[in-house]
């Protein structure tokens, strides 16, 4: 097993133990990226100078006998909607093609304090709107497990980079499944933390009442290492908060029946139910639970998310920064043309949908009604967690689809998110962990926990890793 196969913990131990220099590690990963990128296309920008400089600092500290952190010298990749001062941050959009970040996101600030090493910024669906990373304005990322297929999205670049061993771990963001689904498609671990547990300061907003930053890693243990560093209340994000973890001893797993009823791939269903059986043999008590409002979740999610996006993305106006269409006649024309040209198709579609849902005459029927049903869905989760410790469910109803397969039918692309979005509507945390394979493709389950139950998710996630049916 080479350096590139190691986990954060293993690699960090080797660096701290002076078995290998951080600079050598960075060089090795940069070499792998150089070789693999022409096929995978996970990165929008590679930052070799920065990576080597950061790695050198780690080596110097170790040389001087100074204590270094649990992630020092371990190379990572960062989704391109998270700001790193002085580096481009495009959110996968033409409208921000040449935008240079003016400050660090809070998560980046925290990682910098730990001497992290950044290999580059990763590809994504434009403004995180998508489930396949095909909506990037710049390139199409391939699934490392099968190059003809999508890596999932919107954090497809981050998941592909970790899966292809181009990076040890990565940061992504999850609005409706954008960490868990690409992690599942690429056979790696992805965490969507409790809403508010990780600061969103410096994350380019898509839908602020849903967005959360989280880690994509090779193992559950690594996921915990990164989560523990990036979590916590931040003065710059008034929706962030710290809370003590809930502790309960019993082990009851809820299986929501609505996830297995229709639209699920037959093999995914069989394998997932088989795995639940295996857990039952291990002494877990399995209980059928119900999310009675599940049938509304997809519509509720898209109405609210598009409404939030239509308001949020008003800031991209071609005036203060980013792309601007020079041929405009007057101010209004500058807005119309800049946004007409600068935003890609899916972004325009969602802004139009959101504007429609918020416009006079439709507000009550769409936006307000959706927000009421969102509360019902949140209550459904609260009800379930009175009786069970975790909810176990598939991450995606389908296997990674072929590149181009769903681009002509936006509704069928939206339906691919059906199992991940209820979690974001309620704001609870969920961890996506691979447990089996179908051919060369990987399948995962998501463990959904109660608010701030991340610690329990990691514990249980490790058990799932140990029970999976491949090496």
């Amino acid at each position, binding site marked *: 097993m080479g350096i590139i196969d190691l986990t954060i913990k293993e690699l960090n131990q080797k660096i701290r133990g002076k078995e290998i220099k951080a600079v050598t590690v960075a060089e090795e990963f940069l070499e792998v990226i150089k070789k693999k990128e022409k096929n995978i296309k996970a990165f929008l920008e590679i930052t070799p100078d920065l990576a080597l400089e950061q790695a050198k600092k780690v080596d110097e500290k170790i040389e001087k006998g100074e204590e270094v952190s649990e992630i020092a010298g371990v190379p990572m990749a960062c989704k391109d909607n998270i700001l790193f001062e002085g580096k481009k941050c495009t959110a996968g959009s033409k409208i921000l093609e040449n935008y240079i970040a003016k400050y660090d996101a809070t998560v980046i600030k925290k990682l910098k304090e730990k001497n992290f090493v950044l290999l580059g910024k990763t590809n994504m669906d434009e403004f995180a709107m998508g489930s396949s990373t095909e909506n990037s304005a710049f390139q199409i990322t391939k699934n490392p497990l099968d190059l003809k297929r999508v890596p999932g999205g919107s954090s497809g670049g981050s998941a592909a980079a970790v899966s292809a061993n181009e990076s040890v771990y990565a940061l992504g963001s999850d609005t409706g499944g954008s960490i868990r689904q690409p992690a599942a498609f690429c056979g790696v671990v992805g965490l969507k933390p409790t809403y508010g547990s990780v600061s969103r300061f410096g994350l380019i907003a898509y839908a602020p009442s849903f967005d959360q930053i989280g880690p994509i890693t090779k193992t559950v243990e690594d996921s915990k290492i990164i989560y523990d560093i990036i979590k916590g209340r931040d003065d710059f994000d008034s929706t962030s908060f710290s809370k003590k973890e809930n502790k309960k001893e019993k082990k009851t797993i809820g299986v929501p029946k609505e996830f297995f009823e229709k639209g699920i791939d037959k093999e995914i269903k069989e394998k997932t139910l088989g795995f639940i059986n295996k857990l039952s043999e291990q002494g877990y008590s399995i209980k059928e639970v119900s999310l009675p409002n599940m049938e509304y979740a997809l519509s509720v999610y898209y109405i609210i998310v598009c409404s939030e996006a239509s308001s949020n993305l008003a800031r991209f106006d071609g005036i203060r920064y980013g792309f601007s269409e020079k041929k405009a006649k007057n*101010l209004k024309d500058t*807005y119309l043309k800049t946004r007409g040209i600068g935003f890609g198709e899916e972004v325009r579609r969602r802004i139009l949908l959101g504007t429609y849902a918020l416009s006079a005459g439709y507000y009550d029927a769409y936006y307000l009604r959706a927000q009421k049903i969102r509360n019902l869905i949140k209550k459904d989760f609260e009800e379930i967690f009175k009786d069970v410790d975790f909810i176990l469910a598939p991450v995606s109803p389908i296997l990674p689809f072929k590149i181009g397969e769903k681009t002509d039918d936006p509704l069928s692309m939206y339906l691919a998110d059906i199992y991940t979005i209820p979690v974001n509507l309620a704001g609870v945390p969920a961890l996506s962990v691979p447990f089996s394979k179908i051919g060369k493709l990987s399948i995962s389950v998501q463990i959904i926990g109660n608010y701030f139950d991340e610690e329990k998710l990691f514990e249980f996630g490790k058990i799932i890793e140990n029970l999976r049916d491949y090496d």
Partner: protein
Amino acid sequence: MDFKKEIEKISVLARIELSEKDKTKFSKELNKILDHFNILQKADVKGIQPFLTHSESRNVFRNDEAKTCFGKEILKDDFLDKQGNYLKIKSVKKEWEL
């Protein structure tokens, strides 16, 4: 109302210029998506409050102490057009009517 006309109106509100081809494409697609959304009409929401926030209500104000902030120079760097310390934009006269 003709849905394409509706899309035209919405696109001006959203400040997004659309080509004729896009108008046709989007009106077809959005019609289908909105049809799907109609499922919400059958939910019983009598007496249910709309969702507002994930966090408990609490005071988020900090003490009124001066803190360093971005300098204007750093923000000015990105202005697409400027005059001294001012952001310069194109004329706004007679253009706000829809």
